[in-house]
């Protein structure tokens, strides 16, 4: 399945197009105050990585992934007492989102983005639809198709 590869837009255009969505996402995740710091850090991280991007596909999903990672760090800092922490499953010392991102590396871009945002960052399909510029139903289908593909791949490995 080939997807059209888009060129990387100048950062100014990327930033202006996604800044409001990123701020809205962060406010929901970490609150109005913490969102401001996380907002700046999200786009600074995006800028640091920007000249290493290989194509301009799914940039909204990409920047929301950065924001989601920061939101996780930020809520860990904000709620340091162990019993209040939502338990994140950790295997081999790596948090769940890192595991899933790694596993999903070989998937087609839309499926990978949907799967990572759903299972690694626990975004709702409404949020994923915004990230992928798509509909909640299409986001759900992309995520489950990604899961099927991963399962098939694993089975294949086991049989080989």
């Amino acid at each position, binding site marked *: 399945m080939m997807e059209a590869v888009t060129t990387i837009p100048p950062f100014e255009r990327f930033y202006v197009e996604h800044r409001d969505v990123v701020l809205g996402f962060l406010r929901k995740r970490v609150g109005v105050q913490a969102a401001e710091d996380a907002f*700046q850090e999200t786009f*600074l991280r995006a800028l640091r990585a920007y000249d290493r991007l290989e194509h301009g596909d799914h940039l909204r999903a990409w920047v929301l992934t950065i924001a989601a990672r920061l939101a996780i760090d930020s809520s860990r800092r904000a709620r340091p007492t162990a019993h209040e922490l939502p338990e994140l499953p950790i295997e081999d010392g790596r948090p769940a989102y890192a595991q899933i991102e790694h596993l999903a590396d070989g998937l087609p871009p839309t499926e990978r983005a949907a799967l990572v945002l759903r299972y690694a960052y626990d975004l709702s399909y409404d949020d994923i639809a915004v990230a992928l510029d798509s509909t909640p139903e299409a986001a759900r289908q992309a995520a489950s198709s990604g899961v099927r593909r991963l399962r098939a791949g694993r089975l294949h490995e086991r049989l080989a």
Partner: protein
Amino acid sequence: MNVSPELDRRFRDAATAEGLLDVGFDVVESPIGALLVAASDHGLCRIFFDAEPEQHLDRLARTFGPRVLRSAPAVDNARRQLDEYFEGRRDAFELDVDLRGAAPFARQVLDQLALVPYGQTTTYGTLAGRVGAPRAARAVGTVMNRNPIPIVLPCHRVVGANGSLTGYGGGLDVKERLLRLEGALL
């Protein structure tokens, strides 16, 4: 959820302070109209008479890299010196320029152009002679026409052999105005 101007500015300033930009640009108001001024970490790299950023983003990204961002501090120094120039308080710019993207001949010509003093004019032919190509007046005209950093690299000081103003990227009226400001025209 709209990003406030304050939060927006903080991000742009931080990105500039961290040195993350290939090019920072901003709109600079001037008596000859709004200018779009762009600078890289090598120096001032573009001045456009058409100050609408969307017109120039793609080309800036192609020439200098994709990390192009509007940023007031990135062009602060150029803005201050341009203000002083237009107020008649500055007759020479002290700015590094970034001529990446200019062909070798154009670069030679622009280097010579930078030496033409405030308040004086020269001709296309004279400039051609200074780069060792006295017959290349027409090619020099082309370089002037594509000057990436007008005003600071003073192509407005280059006129025809008969003293006529010939042409200018910002319009002949702007060329005339700049020469008048410098006292090169009465």
